[in-house]
């Protein structure tokens, strides 16, 4: 059980090591024999991985050992990027949230998760540290495939950095038509920056649960920036969302339905962000 990040990186070097945050996702895999590591590396006791701090540049630095429950309640998160708190508060159930860490959540890279699309929409980055040093990785470059990150074996996520955002409105909508506590049929995260006179200056939109990874939708800024968010503009957003979705059939819906819902809920998220109204 390493006490510092360098010790953890050392322990992770070579084959057969498995890093654990809260251990909820890994616990399942371990118990079912789906992973058989030679050694477990516990990241939970590393003080440097805890805490949430506001930087001088206004960015929010969230330690990787922060639990989803802590994330859901933290005043700075609620103030600066409430959609992240909302996503964290809706994930799984209270017991998982009490233990699951941000770092472990991202490391697991399950495309159905709630936080990745939010982090994409917020333009967040992950601080990643290995024996060779630390680098900053955009979330899109971290989550590279289905249950796959770009982390080297000796690397761990040490924090997530959400940049300063002024005049930004962020929304996360989680569509769960069947059981409330299930993974969403589609999760949509939106972050728009709006000038005091109401003009849209920037927009990012990401989808969860409808592709091998969370996916940032291209073309949303084009549809909204400097425009009046007309029906045609919103339809362009819907079309962009549908085009970005490459879902699979599962318990939460067929691929066709998820694709259709990607379009519908992208528009709803944008409307919620622009309207300033609280999301459902």
């Amino acid at each position, binding site marked *: *059980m390493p006490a510092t990040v360098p010790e953890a990186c050392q322990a992770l070097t070579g084959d057969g090591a498995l890093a*654990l945050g809260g*251990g*909820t996702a*890994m*616990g*399942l895999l*371990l*118990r079912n024999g789906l992973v058989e590591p030679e050694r*477990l590396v*516990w990241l*939970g006791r590393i003080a440097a991985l805890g805490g949430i701090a506001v930087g001088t540049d206004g960015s929010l630095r969230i330690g990787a050992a922060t639990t989803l*429950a802590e994330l859901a309640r933290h005043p700075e998160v609620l103030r600066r990027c409430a959609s992240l708190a909302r996503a964290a508060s809706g994930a*799984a*159930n*209270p*017991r*998982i949230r*009490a*233990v699951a860490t941000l770092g472990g959540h991202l490391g697991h890279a399950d495309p159905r998760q709630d936080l990745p699309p939010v982090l994409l929409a917020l333009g967040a980055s992950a601080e990643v540290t290995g024996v060779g040093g630390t680098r900053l990785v955009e979330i899109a470059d971290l989550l590279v495939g289905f249950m796959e990150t770009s982390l080297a074996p000796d690397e761990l996520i040490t924090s997530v950095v959400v940049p300063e955002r002024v005049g930004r409105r962020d929304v996360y909508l989680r569509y769960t038509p069947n059981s*409330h*506590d299930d993974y969403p049929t589609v999760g949509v995260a939106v972050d728009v920056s709006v000038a005091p006179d109401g003009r849209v200056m920037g927009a990012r939109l990401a989808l969860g649960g409808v592709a091998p990874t969370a996916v940032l939708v291209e073309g949303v800024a084009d549809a909204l920036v400097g425009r009046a968010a007309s029906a045609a503009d919103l339809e362009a957003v819907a079309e962009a969302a549908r085009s970005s979705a490459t879902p699979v059939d599962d318990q939460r819906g067929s691929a066709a339905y998820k694709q259709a819902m990607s379009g519908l809920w992208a528009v709803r998220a944008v409307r919620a962000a622009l309207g300033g109204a609280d999301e459902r």
Partner: protein
Amino acid sequence: MRARFTLNGAPVETDVAPASMLLDLVRERGLTGTKEGCAVGICGVCTVLVDDRPVSSCLYLCGFLDGADVWTVEGLVEREPELADAFVECEGMQCGICTPGQVVAAAALRLRSPGAGAAEVREELAGNLCRCTGYETIVEAVMRYLERS
């Protein structure tokens, strides 16, 4: 590995297999109030408190136990008889298999949000499934407990 932790208020020092689950550890020590249900962290019948947080013991790796403060239903009810009394008075149970998990979840809720109303109780307990009661009596029991403590 060697783990030193407290269990229902008493210190424990024992060897644990790091990848083994807390659920099996407590049950092997005779604390069979905590049950195995779905084994995937969903149903909540295995809920215990670790450092005042509700945890699915079926997914809680013993490697995390060193320095932890663990409470199972047996210890919590001894510590706070009003917790069990509320469930008895409101009859918040039928077959009883989910009851220990509900009781522990209620204890955790009080620690985190003692003034919770019915809506918040229902939300917080959504992670503890019950197939028998239809949930109304469980919510009432938790409300009674919160009012009393």
